[in-house]
Each structure stands twice: as structure tokens, then as C-alpha cells.
């Protein structure tokens, strides 16, 4: 695999953007500035970015309750997203959706989703659109280890196989569905289950951006070529609790810190880039600084942005009534 300088620059920037967006949200939430339920994905960046770097603008994704990374990586606008978590009228959903429902259909983003597993058939639908209209676009469904046990997910693995849909199943296994370990909740073997539905499946280290990028790239080319659905199992780790406020005592003490020190996905990519010589430490530093000020600026924007008007409550229920 040969990653070029530009791609690496872009990938690194996106990963840092997701990370800093999440860190910022965490701080804002602790200060009590943000309403609603918030699920952060910090730690899992190599997965969403590694996959989305393979996608075209007209490809589709569906995401989860833990969706900031996916939608940022696919191209949601940072400022609009920040406005949305601040519940502002200028937000990407005009303040009606919030953290769990970020969407941008024009960029192929069918939305984060508060219902575990619900994004899976929706992504199959987007894939059916591509197939029916003869487009070469594909769909990616991001879902968690917990969602792997939902009927909607399992049914759709079969349906996607039967209809030979251009769909990548991206299972982000962070080891937990809320407080329940995936080792408890998933019966059998993860890859064999997917293969049992006739879907070629592969595991990849979700902390290693390059490995994700490559594995997803291979699968996506196969899918784009009409090969039907593929299944990618990504081993990832989330740093914060299940949602903001979760003390996460179900994890052994020190696990997070150990992980951050040894297996942080940004750290690993950073080391790779520097070793490859394609970008210098100072370039990465600069990216980081730029991202930080972008995020800061977004927060400023969001704080000042107007709230929805009371009358907005009645709009957009129907296209026509």
C-alpha cells in the first residue's frame, strides 16, 4: 500500500478533528453548556476516517448514537454540527435533531440514529437506490458490537446478500454495548456469523489507520465492482463512558489510561507518518493547531448563534399536509 502525502495529511487532520471535537464536547458538557444525551467516540477515529477516506461524495453512510466521528469523517460541516449540539437554529438539523441525529443527505449522510441497529436497513435502502439507478456509489453502515445482535442488523445481512447490494458492514467493536461486554453478548464467532450469511468477512486492527484504510479500500473496490456486501470487523476502543455521565465502572481500573498510552490510534498514525518521512512533526503540529482553532471558532459561532423560534416547532413535519 502506498499512502501519499496529501492523503495522510487529510486523514490525520480528520482524525484530529474528530478527537478535538469530542474533547471539546466533553468539556462543554461538563460545564453544563450542552443539552441532551451525548455519546462520544474519542479513541475510535481510525475506523471512521480510515473507511471514509475511501468514499466518494455520492457514497452513503448510516451511523449510530455515537456518530460524531462518522459524519465528520464523511464531510458534515463542523460549524453546523457544533451549532446543532448547542441546539441552535443554524444547526445542521436546525436544532431539531441534536447529537444523536446529525444528518446531511446531500453529502450521503443518512444520519446518526438513536435506535441501535436501525441504520443497517436504512443503509441497505441507500445501496438499493444506487443499484436500481445504476450508479457506482456504495453504502457503508457503521454499527457497534451491541448492534450486531439486533434483528434489524441480522435480517439485513441476509437481505443484502440475497439482493447483492453494494453495502459494507463496518462493525466497530469497542468491547461494550453500554455496560455489557461484547464477549458476553455475542454468541459464537464474529466473522463466522457474517460468513454464515454468505458475506465475505475480515477483521482488522481498528487502531491502525493504515490497516483500516487498506482493508476497507479492498472491500470497497470489490463492492463497487458488483461483488455484493462485505463485512469488516474493527477492533476499537472508546475513551469516555458510554454516554456523558457514565462513570464506566464496568471497566477495570487503569484500562483506559493503558490504552491511551499504548494503542491510541492518532499516536500510531503519527508515528507512522513521521517514520515514513512524508510529513514532519512540525506539519502535524500545525494541523493540530489549526484544528484546535477551528473547533474553538465553531464553539464561538455556536454560542452566538440564534435559538430556534417557537414557531419552528410546527414546521417540517410533512412535505405537504
Amino acid at each position: 500500500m502506498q499512502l501519499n502525502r496529501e492523503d495522510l495529511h487529510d486523514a490525520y487532520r480528520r482524525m484530529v478533528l474528530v478527537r478535538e471535537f469530542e474533547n471539546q464536547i466533553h468539556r462543554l458538557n461538563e460545564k453544563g453548556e450542552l443539552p441532551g444525551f451525548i455519546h462520544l467516540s474519542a479513541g475510535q477515529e481510525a475506523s471512521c476516517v480510515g473507511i471514509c477516506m475511501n468514499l466518494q461524495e455520492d457514497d452513503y453512510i448510516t451511523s449510530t448514537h455515537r456518530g460524531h466521528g462518522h459524519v465528520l469523517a464523511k464531510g458534515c460541516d463542523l460549524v453546523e454540527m457544533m451549532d446543532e449540539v448547542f441546539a441552535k437554529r443554524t444547526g445542521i438539523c436546525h436544532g431539531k435533531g441534536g447529537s444523536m441525529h446529525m444528518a446531511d443527505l446531500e453529502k450521503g449522510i443518512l444520519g446518526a440514529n438513536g435506535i441501535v441497529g436501525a441504520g443497517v436497513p436504512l443503509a441497505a435502502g441507500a445501496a438499493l437506490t444506487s443499484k436500481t439507478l445504476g450508479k457506482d456509489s456504495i453504502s457503508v453502515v457503521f454499527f457497534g458490537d451491541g448492534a450486531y445482535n439486533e434483528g434489524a442488523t441480522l435480517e439485513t445481512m441476509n437481505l443484502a446478500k440475497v439482493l447483492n447490494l453494494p453495502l459494507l458492514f463496518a462493525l466497530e467493536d469497542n468491547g461494550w454495548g453500554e455496560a455489557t461486554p461484547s464477549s458476553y453478548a455475542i454468541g459464537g464467532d464474529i466473522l463466522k456469523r457474517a460468513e454464515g450469511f454468505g458475506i465475505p468477512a475480515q477483521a482488522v486492527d481498528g487502531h491502525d489507520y493504515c490497516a483500516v484504510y487498506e482493508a476497507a479500500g479492498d472491500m470497497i473496490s470489490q463492492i463497487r465492482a458488483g461483488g455484493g456486501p462485505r463485512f469488516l470487523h474493527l477492533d476499537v476502543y472508546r475513551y469516555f463512558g458510554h454516554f456523558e455521565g457514565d462513570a464506566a465502572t464496568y471497566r477495570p481500573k487503569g484500562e483506559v489510561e493503558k490504552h491511551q498510552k499504548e494503542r491510541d490510534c492518532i499516536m500510531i498514525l503519527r508515528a507512522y507518518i513521521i517514520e515514513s518521512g512524508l510529513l514532519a512533526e512540525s506539519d502535524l503540529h500545525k494541523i493540530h493547531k489549526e484544528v484546535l482553532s477551528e473547533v474553538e471558532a465553531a464553539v464561538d459561532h455556536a454560542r452566538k448563534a440564534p435559538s430556534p423560534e417557537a414557531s419552528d416547532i410546527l414546521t417540517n413535519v410533512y412535505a405537504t399536509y
Partner: protein
Amino acid sequence: MRRDDRVILIGEDIAGGTGGKGEEDAWGGVMGVTKGLYKEFGAGRVIDTPISEMSYIGTAVGAAATGLRPIAELMFCDFLGCCFDQILNQAAKFRYMFGGKVSMPLVIRMQCGAGFSAAAQHSQSLHALLTHIPGLKVVMPSSPYEAKGLLIEAIRDNDPVMFFENKLMYDDVGEVPDEDYTIPFGEAALRTDGEDVTICALGRMVNLAEQAVVQLRKRNIEATLIDLRSTSPLDVETICESVEETGRLVIVDEGSPRCGFAADVAALVASKAFGALQAPIEMVTPPHTPIPFAPVLEQEYLPNPERVIMAVDKVMAYGR
């Protein structure tokens, strides 16, 4: 489908036989409604699915959000339980949750109605459940003419339309023009016009109420019979205007009574046209029980013209 190739059909056995060694278009849906479309449009646009309602209804929802205009068939509305999330939390809410940035040109066709002794899990009329959900449109035609006009409207509409077809009416015969026409939602039709009492109904219940109206006419009771056509949107105006004239309201509905559609109409009138009401509102519905199998019980369960007449007599007698 000829007019727009974004229109697709998706469901279980809507062709019937896809991939098999016998006839590939053997069924055309469990009632043969979509028969022949497979031959004309092929497996790419008339899509037989595995028995996975959550998945194929969700696929239709996702397809509708991304540019197709799917018509999904759920066979029996009783199966809503197997795909309810995609309707309740996805199709109905996408547009609102996403700040208006998406359209959902989706039609879900499904059978409803008792009378075939199909028992508790294949005879329900669950339009009230869907009417309760903001973001959905809910339609139930009362004749072949209405069915065509409302279905074409549904296909061209940009919101999710839940289309109920009473299984007892597939053999109904009626005048249907060959050309395309649409019937707008939320505009009720007057079947009969009379000044003594207003009767509201939907779907097959309209025809059953009409039998009552004919009987009542012999006794010089003149009823306005309103075919509501859609429950959401609902033509509240026409109902209230009629009640302003007649002062009396009877609602006939085949759904369960509690939090049902008859109650819905009654409540609207009791709050918006109270001043005009001269008698209690009468609701003719089944009892609040599951649907029994035995024909004698099922006949007891269903509304019938006699009960409509009794209800009218009751509101006519009030206060006199």
C-alpha cells in the same frame, strides 16, 4: 411505474416465485394485487424479499430518503409489529429530526379488516396506531375508484403514506376510469347529504354505513354520510361543518375503540363543534377484544348496518 422509473415495488411474494424453478410471477402478492408487474418491469423493480419485515421496510425507508419512490407491501397490517421501529422512529421522524432536509416518498400498502375468519393475528385494522404517529399519512379507500385515485396520490406524495386495503374488498367491482387521476388526502367525500345526522366512516365501513343510510331514509331520517378517506390528514372542517348542520354525530370504525379512530373524531368534535351538538356522540366500533376466529363471534365483533341504525336512533331520540 411506467411514468417514473424511481418507483419500485418491494415485499414478500409480490412477484412470488423469484429464483424458483416454477412460474416466476406465481403470486403477485398474497392476493394477486401486483400480479403481472414482475413480467413487465422485472426483478430489478419488483423485488421479492426474504421474510424480514424490519429489513425490507427499512430498506424502503432508506431508498425513499435517497431518491427512489418505493411502494412496499406489508401483506397484513398485523405484521406492523415486525417492522414498527422503521415506521415509528425512522420514516415518520426523518424529515423533522433532520430539520426538513429530506423527503420520504414512501408508500406502505397493507391489508386490514376482519370477516375472513383469519383470527386475531390476520384481521386487525391498525390505522389508529399509525394515525397516532406524527409524520405519517394514513389512507383507507372505500371503493375501487377511490383506491386508484388515492394510490396514485400516495405514490406521488413526498411523505410516508400508510395505505390500508380491506381484504374483503378485493373482489369489489366499481367504475374506474382508465386514465390517471388523483384524489387529494384530507378532503372527505360526501356519500349522502342529509340534515338529521352526520355519519363518519372510512374504508369498508363507509359501504356498510351506506346500507344503514338507505334503511334510515325509508323512515325519513336523512343522514349525511362522510367518507373520510384519510385519517391523517383529517378533514376536520367537513366533519364540523356537517355537525353544525345536523347537530348529531355517529362514527363507524373497525379499529379497536380505546384510543381508536372513532374516539379521535369524537374528541375533535367535542372540542371544536361542541356548541352544535344536540346529542351524545355515538361510536360504532368492535368491542375492546382481540378478534375471534369463529364466524359467529366475528360477526358479533364487527360493526354492521343494524348497529349503525341503532346508534342513529339513539342520537335521534336524545332529548326529544
